[in-house]
């Protein structure tokens, strides 16, 4: 094949990845728009090891080559992820686009990546004879910068099995389909014995990477809902001060405003009114 390698297995893919200067091709929906000249692709769309969704004691493991359509049909993928993925573009794009590709493209607008951030997902990265597991927020080093070596491939996304039941998800695009996120928001809430155990909030499409402030979240952890209510105004103010948004086709002011409204609504939804 001219300018391309088709891998039939993960081991074959890793051999090629190690031996050649290739661009991993999963779904192609971003790569073909970029249309980089003179590249050699490593086609991963038919690697069976990357196409599986499995569940173990701790994680739902989504193969990097699983398409969004496939995830929507899986009983194992949690509702929060399905909701986000169902809002991506339109059927043809969801039929092609993959979880690995969404990560690998490095965009803060990637709708599945937002969920991975808010869920504290991990990524399993593999290379020939070697593998490592990294937290998704460590994988993103900056705009379009990833902690991925030139011999590595993303193999799996490891979503925690528990704790994603209570959530808010919002995608704000320019229209109801074929929409690139202008702001996306995911919040996950947990309460045990009257005390807040989780109040994760992630913001997509507003900065170079997905934004999440774990130190701010920590100020509400362990609090009762009543205590959190009293802290809410300060809490929102802290977010407002911290969030610096990049300019896009829509203004930073608008997006900031939306982020704060959605964060407020998320807290209110779980009793912190």
């Amino acid at each position, binding site marked *: *094949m*001219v*300018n*391309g*390698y*088709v891998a039939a297995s993960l081991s074959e893919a890793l051999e090629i990845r190690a031996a050649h200067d290739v661009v991993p*091709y999963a*779904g*192609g*929906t971003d*790569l*073909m*728009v970029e*249309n980089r000249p003179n*590249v*050699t*692709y490593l*086609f991963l*769309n*038919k690697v069976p090891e990357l196409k599986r969704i499995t569940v173990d004691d701790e994680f739902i493991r989504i193969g990097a080559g699983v398409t969004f*359509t496939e995830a929507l049909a899986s009983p194992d993928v949690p509702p929060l992820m399905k909701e986000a993925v169902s809002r991506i*573009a*339109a*059927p*043809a*794009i969801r*039929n*092609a686009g993959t979880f690995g590709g969404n990560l690998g493209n490095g965009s803060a607008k990637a709708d599945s990546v937002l969920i991975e951030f808010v869920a504290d997902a991990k990524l399993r990265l593999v290379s020939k004879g070697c593998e490592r597991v990294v937290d998704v927020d460590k994988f993103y080093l900056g705009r379009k910068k990833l902690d991925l070596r030139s011999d590595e491939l993303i193999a799996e996304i490891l979503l925690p099995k528990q704790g994603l039941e209570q959530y808010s998800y919002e995608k704000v695009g320019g229209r*109801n*389909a*074929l929409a690139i996120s202008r702001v996306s928001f995911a919040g996950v809430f947990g309460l045990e014995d009257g005390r807040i155990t989780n109040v994760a909030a992630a913001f997509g499409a507003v900065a170079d990477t997905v934004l999440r402030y774990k130190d701010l979240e920590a100020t509400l952890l362990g609090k009762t809902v009543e205590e959190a209510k009293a802290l809410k105004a300060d809490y929102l103010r802290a977010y407002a001060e911290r969030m610096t948004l990049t300019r896009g086709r829509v203004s930073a002011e608008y997006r900031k405003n939306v982020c704060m409204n959605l964060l407020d609504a998320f807290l209110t939804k779980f009793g912190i009114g």
Partner: protein
Amino acid sequence: MADIRFTLNGRAVAYAGSAGDRLLDVLRRDYRCTSVKCGCKEGECGACSVLIDGVLMNSCCVAMGAVEGSSVVTMEGFRETERFAALSKAFGDLSAVQCGFCIPGMVLAAEALLSKNAHPTEDEIREGLSGNLCRCTGYNAIVNAVNNAAKEGNGLW
């Protein structure tokens, strides 16, 4: 070097060009499948929709290497089927075709939808066609035509 082998509208073919070439360009240029329209080359309009292994894809966003071993169906193939005849009749009865440029892709999107869901609701039809822009019709006639095809073509899907 080995050619890229795939089936196009049921016929085995081998492509000797670059694996990075766009399926859209190759279909139009090398195989003269000109029903596949180029509306944007960015996956944003659906005019170049084809079925790959039965699944709707924007052929502008598919590199040739990705179709190795796959089955590609364009309108040139689909128009020979009974399902096409049912869709064509439904579209014709409502004059759902205006300029026609989006239509081959739109019909393949309808086929992809109905093959997964033979009796869709209006919302499901709108979801199924949501990646296919039409500037002429306001979508009413197209959505209603797909609905009618699903009803009248009972058993075909």
